[in-house]
């Protein structure tokens, strides 16, 4: 699973670019009221999902919270299906029934998109249980926020993951804030990663603003989990550039703090590293960026043109009809 090859890094760079451009476009569409509900942007955190997904096998399971656009895109959901979902259209990745917080793409093994904080942590743990039950060597990756580690469901799930020795990796995307609450105001310890000690769980801190570091540090962890079927707890240090959701002005932090964080921008970093190393030119980068922007813009047109979910199907999604044989 070595990810050192030049092409792969270019792909990963493009992946991050696409997430960013897609969400910038989504932000604009939200402001134009084409998108409803709550909408949480991932901008700034792209290295975490792009790097970790690059290490995974396509058939590994991933699952995350409501800040999920990047996770779907990284897993291969088309920008069209993502934008259409935001628009609530029938062509959306959840047929317009889920919305921003509930992106699903089961074909690509992306199991949501879950909006009750930490409620997906037991789900992830059960998915890993299923893999072990079926003797598969699949790994489940559960992304969650720094705020989620204070929910009871997180606790119960981690204890059982350790007890049952399940092949699951919990990645806390520590973007420093849960809404307006800095992580210092939500836990009594200095570091999130210390929570793992209460479960005797293997743990690591990774630099979530540096996609190369993510890949480097995450690779042996995935190998360990796949082989030894024991859970890991990872704190990925990162930062979100935007407010918690589209309606949050984020006055709880200074402009200076934000600007300082942006100096570590994961896209700029990989871009300049690759250029320095002669693996990328500015022209090629601009081209990639243009492409990412075009895909995002096109996804708006696609979403606009897509049909609403049919009213007469309203009752078709309450119960699954087909009986087992």
């Amino acid at each position, binding site marked *: 699973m070595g990810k050192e090859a030049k092409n792969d890094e270019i792909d990963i760079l493009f992946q991050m670019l696409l997430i960013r451009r897609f969400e910038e476009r989504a932000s604009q569409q939200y402001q134009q009221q084409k998108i409803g509900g709550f909408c949480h942007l991932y901008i700034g955190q792209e290295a975490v999902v792009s790097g970790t997904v690059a290490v995974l096998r396509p058939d590994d*399971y991933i699952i995350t919270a409501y800040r999920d656009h990047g996770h779907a895109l990284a897993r291969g959901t088309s920008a069209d299906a993502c934008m259409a979902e935001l628009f609530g259209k029938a062509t*959306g*990745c*959840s*047929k*317009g*029934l*889920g919305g921003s917080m*509930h992106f*699903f*793409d*089961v074909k690509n093994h992306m*199991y*949501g*998109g*879950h909006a*009750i904080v930490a*409620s997906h*942590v*037991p*789900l*992830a*743990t*059960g*998915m890993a*249980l*299923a*893999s072990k*039950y*079926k003797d598969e060597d699949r790994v489940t990756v559960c992304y969650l926020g720094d705020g989620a580690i204070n929910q*009871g*469901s997180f*606790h*119960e*799930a981690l*204890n*059982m993951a350790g*007890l*049952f020795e399940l092949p699951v990796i919990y990645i806390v995307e520590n973007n420093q804030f849960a809404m307006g609450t800095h992580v210092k105001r939500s836990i009594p310890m200095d570091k999130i990663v210390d929570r793992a000690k209460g479960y005797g769980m293997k743990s690591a801190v990774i630099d979530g603003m540096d996609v190369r570091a993510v890949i480097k540090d995450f690779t042996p962890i995935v190998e360990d989990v796949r082989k030894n079927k024991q859970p890991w707890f990872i704190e990925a240090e990162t930062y979100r550039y935007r407010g918690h959701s589209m309606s949050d002005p984020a006055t709880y932090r200074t402009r200076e703090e934000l600007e300082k964080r942006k100096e570590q921008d994961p896209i700029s970093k990989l871009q300049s590293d690759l250029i320095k190393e002669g693996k990328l030119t500015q022209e090629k980068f601009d081209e990639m960026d243009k492409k990412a922007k075009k895909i995002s813009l096109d996804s708006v047109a696609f979403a606009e043109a897509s049909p609403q979910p049919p009213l007469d199907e309203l009752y*078709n*999604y*309450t*119960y*699954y*009809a*087909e*009986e*087992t044989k």
Partner: protein
Amino acid sequence: MREITYRQALNEALFEEMERDKNVFLIGEEVAEYNGAYKVSQGLLDKFGPKRVIDTPISENGFAGMSIGAAMVGLRPVVEFMTFSFSLVAFDQIVNNAPNMITMSGGQLHVPVTFRGPNGPAHTLGATHSHATESLFANFPGLKICTPATPRDAKGLLKTAIRDNNPVLVLECELLYSVKGLVEDEGEELLIPLGSAEVKREGSDVTIICYAQTVPMALNAAEELSGMGINAEVLDLRSIRPLDLDAILASVSKTHRVVVAEQDRPVCGIGSEITYQIQHHIFDELDAPILRVAQEDVPMPYNELLEIAVLPNSEKIVNAVKRVCNL
């Protein structure tokens, strides 16, 4: 047919479905090595081993959610709550994740999980341990709920629940576990559909609608009433969701009088929903107001006499029937 207990019937259902489908497994507190707090899972660990009969820590929210997750990727978990009073700490997983997944994913996922265990007041367990949860869960589209009152229904409904591709709650009764009844022989496949009520006693003067614990009470009451010249029909709902409205309306169209005997608390309980449905669909068939016999509207006291005063019983049902029959 042979006589077995309600407990044995549930045990057979688990056995048969686990034999039939290797994706079915049982998970919960004390289900494996202890063979179940109420011994419903007796012998399953021996037969199927620890991979398929899983003891958990005391983490209902966690293992309910894990089971939903396992069901999302193709397993068919059966979750035992030691009692449904403890399902309240797992409430969010049961009502938010299980029933909403199919909608939220636009139909990509479904959740074939069964939640089962004793539900409703047992005997002098006090306020925290006596919850009847059926009306709470009934509020949530996407869930199915059944409430067996006899060994036969227990076996047939649990088997159907496990095969259903949706989250199903099988609300059992602790007080019925040792009650015996006739059940099809072991070789015979017994599947009772969800959403199908059963007339447990035919009658013409009044319909007593009941389920779970109140079925034997209603049958006793009907016996007593027949001595007074009242011929009561006893309709066992068996399922709360889907509700067998056809059976309800058919019976009431015949008798024109209704008592709902329910084991839950009254406010927004099962009786209230049934009342709405009946008056909505066949208002003109009703010759008298519908009466419900539910718990008194107080937290459950420990003291036995007070508990008796709170709970429904045959005598209260008889009195309610007399009232709706203007006696």
